[in-house]
């Protein structure tokens, strides 16, 4: 397999072979985290800069642990303590970071397309760790790895993605990749949180029971209260009454159904504690797989001679535009 990408901006446009190659590579890295000495020298001398302009614990720590287990130097910057609060533009911040010669920039930003912009302007590789409501590719890859480990395959599975689809970059990245790998995707949520463009790509329903009936995988999303979701639903309590996943719902799914959640959990809103802590939950496996996926991504982007003739990856402008308009609504 010839993996020739310089950046990981999103999974839209990735083909089946590329996704499977990423998953296979990630699976090989799992063993390193189980060793007594959890470190390999592969990225010695490489610098990974993480710039997070939105809060994050899991993703940032996961990237940091991944980079350190690969022996890369890891420097992180968070929005609230950066010069962005003094009015510096993203591009100026990024150019200044780039002047310090990092090899990989991991970016989380509230604006869709921010990593695509930087990928065009900077010399280093850019990894999208979540851009607004657009994509979060490493999260989808770790979800796929977890599904494949639990079910042995992805093709032909019924995957219900439940919740705030509209604001979810996790849902978008998963939707693209799951379709590419041949899974049947259902999107479940209140009509106001089901974006019309997604209806063209998957079966949509507002009924949680219908959505989880016969499902192999139920993937829950966090209700993103920081994105003014209050304007889209009458109240959080009402949302919880219709969409909080309980064991009663899971009895409608396949007997070996697994329940996933990208975290952080809103217990009692989108997931009941009995489900979160119950036998169907693979939430902590997802977190463990996140490290392996990010090790694989850093390995694939951080090694190999700089490719002068690297294909320039055209950002998916239409999709970004849609996500941007949504964010500003």
């Amino acid at each position, binding site marked *: *397999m*010839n*993996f*020739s990408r310089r950046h990981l901006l999103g999974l839209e446009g990735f083909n089946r072979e590329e996704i499977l*190659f990423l998953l*296979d*590579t990630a*699976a*090989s*890295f*799992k*063993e*390193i985290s189980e*060793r*007594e*000495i959890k*470190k*390999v*020298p*592969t990225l010695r001398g490489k610098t990974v800069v993480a710039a997070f302009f939105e809060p994050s614990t899991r993703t940032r720590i996961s990237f940091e642990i991944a980079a350190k287990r*690969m022996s890369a130097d890891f420097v992180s910057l968070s929005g609230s303590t950066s010069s962005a609060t003094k009015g510096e533009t993203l591009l100026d911040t990024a150019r200044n970071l780039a002047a310090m010669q990092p090899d990989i920039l991991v970016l989380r930003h509230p604006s869709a397309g921010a990593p695509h912009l930087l990928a065009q302007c900077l010399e280093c590789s850019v990894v999208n760790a979540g851009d607004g409501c657009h994509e979060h590719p490493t999260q989808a890859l770790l979800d796929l790895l977890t599904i494949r480990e639990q079910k042995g395959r992805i093709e032909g599975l019924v995957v219900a993605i439940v919740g705030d689809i509209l604001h979810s970059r996790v849902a978008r990245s998963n939707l693209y990749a799951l379709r590419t790998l041949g899974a049947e995707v259902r999107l479940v949520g209140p009509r106001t949180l089901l974006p019309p463009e997604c209806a063209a790509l998957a079966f949509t329903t507002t009924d949680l029971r219908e959505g989880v009936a016969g499902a192999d995988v139920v993937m829950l999303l966090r209700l993103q209260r920081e994105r003014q979701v209050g304007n889209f639903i009458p109240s959080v309590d009402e949302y919880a009454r219709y969409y909080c996943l309980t064991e009663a719902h899971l009895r409608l799914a396949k007997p070996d159904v697994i329940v996933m959640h990208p975290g952080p959990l809103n217990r009692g809103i989108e997931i009941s504690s009995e489900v979160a802590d119950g036998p169907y939950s693979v939430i902590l496996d997802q977190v463990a797989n996140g490290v392996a996926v990010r090790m*694989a991504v850093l*390995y*694939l982007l951080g*090694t*190999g*001679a700089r*490719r002068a003739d690297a294909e320039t990856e055209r950002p998916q402008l239409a999709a970004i535009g849609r996500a941007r308009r949504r964010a500003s609504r």
Partner: protein
Amino acid sequence: MSGERVVLDARGIDRALTRIAHEIVERNKGLEDLVLIGIRSRGVHLAERLRRKLAEIDGTTVPMGIIDITLYRDDLSRSRQQPEVKETKVDFPIDDRRVILVDDVLFTGRTVRAALDALVDLGRPRSVQLCVLVDRGHRELPIRADYVGKNLPTSLDEEVQVRLAESDGVEEVVLHRREG
């Protein structure tokens, strides 16, 4: 393929491995504390065969592990395409064991250097011995093999290929001119 010369056939490979198995038992005075570690990919097949032969000779089945040396290579930032990473699988502690590292061809010694680094990340073996099916010379590092199936003088523009039934469907070691 043009100009391909078979230097070891199926029987030759089998005889070499049988002799190496006897040498291993002799030099180590038995199989106590001994473990085999195969280097992906063909070293693994050879290690499996040695393990069976050792069991026939001594009646003990020694533990066997697999290492992938990709993450320890010294040319990762030079090659245009990064090699595929496969899993390292050593399910037993190697501390204070006598490790026999198995590979198909010994050439520059760089693979073995990487394997030694990978090994010490997994523990502290009492000793490490190296076993190869073919030693083709041209070392670039101070490394030598303890057990050699066949010493094969080669020139740098030649290539040695080990083909094994498990991965290639045929059993032979061939020598040919590098193409291009």
